[in-house]
């Protein structure tokens, strides 16, 4: 359940970032119903999670994928910088 809440929080942060420009307008705020709806959906998922590990599914594929690709990207960046030095290949 804690893993699912973590992903829900990440989803809310992503939505806030997506609407960041719109939220700068006066009298515009992120609807309260968004957080409530996500929490409700989390409750549904938690029930299924009792016998089918949704959190594990998300972590094993999405989380691992993001971590792996981020690591590869950082590795390539470091190697690109290192090769800027003369004599290093």
């Amino acid at each position: 359940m804690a893993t699912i809440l973590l992903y829900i929080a990440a989803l809310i942060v992503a939505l806030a970032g997506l609407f960041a420009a719109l939220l700068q307008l006066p009298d515009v705020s992120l609807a309260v119903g968004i957080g409530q709806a996500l929490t409700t959906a989390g409750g549904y998922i938690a029930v299924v999670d009792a016998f089918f590990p949704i959190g594990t599914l998300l972590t094993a594929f999405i989380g691992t994928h993001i971590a792996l690709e981020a690591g590869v990207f950082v590795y390539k960046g470091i190697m690109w910088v290192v090769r800027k030095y003369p004599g290093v290949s």
Partner: protein
Amino acid sequence: MRPNGTEWWVKAFFYLLAACIAILAATAASRGNAAQYPISNYDTTGGLNAGGTGAPCNDVRFGELDQAFTGTTDLYIGLVVPSGFSNIQNFAVNYFSDSGYTNNIGSASFGGGGTAFYTISSTSTTAFNVYFRIAAPTIPAGSFIGMQGFDGTGHCPSMGLSFSGDISHIFASTATDALDGPVIPASALNFLVPQNGTSTPASFGQWELTFDNFSTSTSATVKVFFGVSSSTLYYGDSTYLPSLAPATYDVQIPRTSSLVPGTFYARAVAYNATSTTEIAASDIISFTTEISLPPSATSTTPGSGGVFSNLFVRLSRKPPFGYFLAIRAGLEGLATSTPAFELMTTSTVAAAAGVFTPIRTGFVWIIWFYAGLWVYHRLRMMTF
């Protein structure tokens, strides 16, 4: 082939920028703001004392002008005239170099017609409010503004009452309502501004009038009427607005005890509004200024009473912003309370956990196994 030197559009941009700056400077020099000419040293206790035929009138003393009032700008002085002015037919505003109001520098003119005095159109039996537009060429700083009343023959009438006027030279925003709606033509020359709201003002308040749907006209005046019903208007000639330029006016409500408390209606009638729209050079300059200068935060804050305080509300309902508003309204509707379903079992939670936990553990192993295969495949296909 690329030409040498600066690109043509760069030159055009800077030429355009210079032209805009010149226009703005010229406009700013020719256009004033009433709030930029404050008056201090209020002296509202002056009286229109009795004067004889040919005798000089004692002035109603407004106060000292803090800044120089120059050129073609307009100086607005709002004055609440109490009842009892039936025997004064005209007002004239003079300005003086001394606080004793004895050394007269010159006199101002009223309205758009350049008349040297303002005529009360009818016998006033109630208090009314009037705004003067002084079209004087130059009033130096430190001058003292005063007003005189006289009859049709230019003589000072015998008043027999003391004068106590409230000066609202600055349009302080204590707006309680805004008139904003389409223009209903009452006749070929007159336009009615319908009221779209009512208010219950204080015994003496101000009313914000928003004129933004008028076509440009250079020879129009506005008079605001008040009434206690939407169909019957009382206290005509209560307010005189000298021009019909799209703007927001703060109109003071007459100080009459018969109107408070209660629902209050206001209507404005535009007189002499020409049907043929004439576009003058000054209109073009004004329009250029309005679209070039972004409004300040004060004037755009909702509820501030500023000129653009309703702008965001109107824009929020129009495409493309209206779509976001609809989406937002729909998202707010998601906050419905549907109870989460419960898995029906015939045993306790512990027993259910005893059944499902091994299944879940199996799923976890399978998921991580396939995740490992996926990672292995990704690393195997990776190129550096």
